[in-house]
């Protein structure tokens, strides 16, 4: 049961983390009315993944190894683009909230409905097919009289959702400035991990070279079957065996994006209410 639990936990964390930050963000900027778009995206991702997974598991339809790696890799890279865009949306909101923006201007800074649906859809769906195939396999095992796989998988997913919910609860209580800086940093690291994951998929597909050229191998210290390896993989996509290209992509993403996100404002976001605010915005 542990094996199934850990996979459920990992897949659940990978899907739920970005969504919980997105939900916390919407609640904190007072746009809880937009939450339904997030749920729409999540529901669509779950439905599509389960349907496609069922197709692959119960019919003789199959997806070639190369094609599924290209699919997963491409979706992951697209997801990185969207999360990066989300990170900079949050930065603009943080800047505007430092000033005295009210009403209409603040409204304009909330992400559009379509963007919210797409972001949630991709955050949950990019690994949805893999998760669905794993779940259907657990369901099939029940058919042969073995309940442990499905129970383990369900508990793992439930644990991930609970953790994501706890994160949300913590995030909404924290003050705005801290919220934006912490979640911003978290999202940058998470996105870098997704990028590294996408690079690995494309290496497996042969689209990118260097599958066997490892930057490091710490699977002795962090064996894939342990809970800590699982949590690391599910949150920041840390692989005990990381290729050089993955490491390069990770650094090449984190450094410029973190610098851009945390650079001081070049000018005040609005006419400052107090002189101290213009000091923050000055070059």
């Amino acid at each position, binding site marked *: *049961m*542990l*094996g*199934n639990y*850990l*996979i459920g936990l990992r897949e659940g964390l990978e899907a739920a983390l970005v969504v919980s930050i997105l939900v916390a963000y919407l609640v904190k900027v007072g746009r809880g009315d937009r939450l339904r778009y997030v749920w729409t995206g999540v529901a669509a991702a779950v439905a599509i993944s389960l349907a496609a997974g069922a197709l692959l*598991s119960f*019919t*003789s*339809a*199959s*997806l*070639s*190894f*190369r*094609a*599924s790696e*290209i*699919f997963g890799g*491409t*979706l992951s890279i*697209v997801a990185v*683009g*969207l999360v990066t865009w989300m990170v900079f949306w949050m930065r603009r909101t943080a800047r505007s909230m430092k000033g005295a923006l009210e009403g209409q201007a603040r409204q304009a800074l909330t992400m*559009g*409905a*379509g*963007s919210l*649906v*797409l972001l949630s859809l*991709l955050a949950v769906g990019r690994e949805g097919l*893999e998760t669905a*195939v*794993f779940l259907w*396999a*657990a369901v*099939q*095992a029940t058919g042969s009289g*073995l309940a*442990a*796989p499905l129970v*383990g*998988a369900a508990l793992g997913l439930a644990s991930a959702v609970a953790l994501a919910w706890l994160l949300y609860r913590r995030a909404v209580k924290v003050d705005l400035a801290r919220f934006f800086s912490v979640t911003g940093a978290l999202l940058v690291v998470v996105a870098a991990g997704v990028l590294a994951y996408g690079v690995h998929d494309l290496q*497996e597909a*042969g689209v990118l070279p260097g*599958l066997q050229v490892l930057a490091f191998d710490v*699977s002795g210290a962090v*064996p*894939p*079957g342990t809970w800590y390896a699982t949590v690391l993989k599910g949150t920041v996509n840390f692989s*005990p*065996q990381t290729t050089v290209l993955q490491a390069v992509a990770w650094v090449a993403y984190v450094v410029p994006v973190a610098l851009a996100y945390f650079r001081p404002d070049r000018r005040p976001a609005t006419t400052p209410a107090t002189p101290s605010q213009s000091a923050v915005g000055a070059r």
Partner: protein
Amino acid sequence: MTTTTVRRSRPLLLVVGSALALSACGASAGADGGASVAVDSSDSACSVARTELAAGATELSITNSGASTTEVYVYDAAGDVVGEREDIAPGTSQSLTVDLEPGRYEVTCKPGQSGEGIATPVTVA
């Protein structure tokens, strides 16, 4: 959705659509009477029901009878990965379909998802 959102989403939808289309090229609906071979991956063994196979689309029906999550790779003679199936949880079965040309291959099970794994040689006529 506003028209601006739709306009802005179009390039994105194009990329996602292309990803789907590309993978559809790699999808096949139904093996045409292709072979099915049972693979049992346990904690210490990787048993392939038949090690002399016919060329063509072959479905490996993999069962994990061990205690840890396993993955199964099919390597060709050059050491390249022809197919793989990861995250096969204990007690479950998953299938992996590979297109095999005549030659020598290795079906490798990696219980615990790390290390060299247990290789079983397979010949395709």
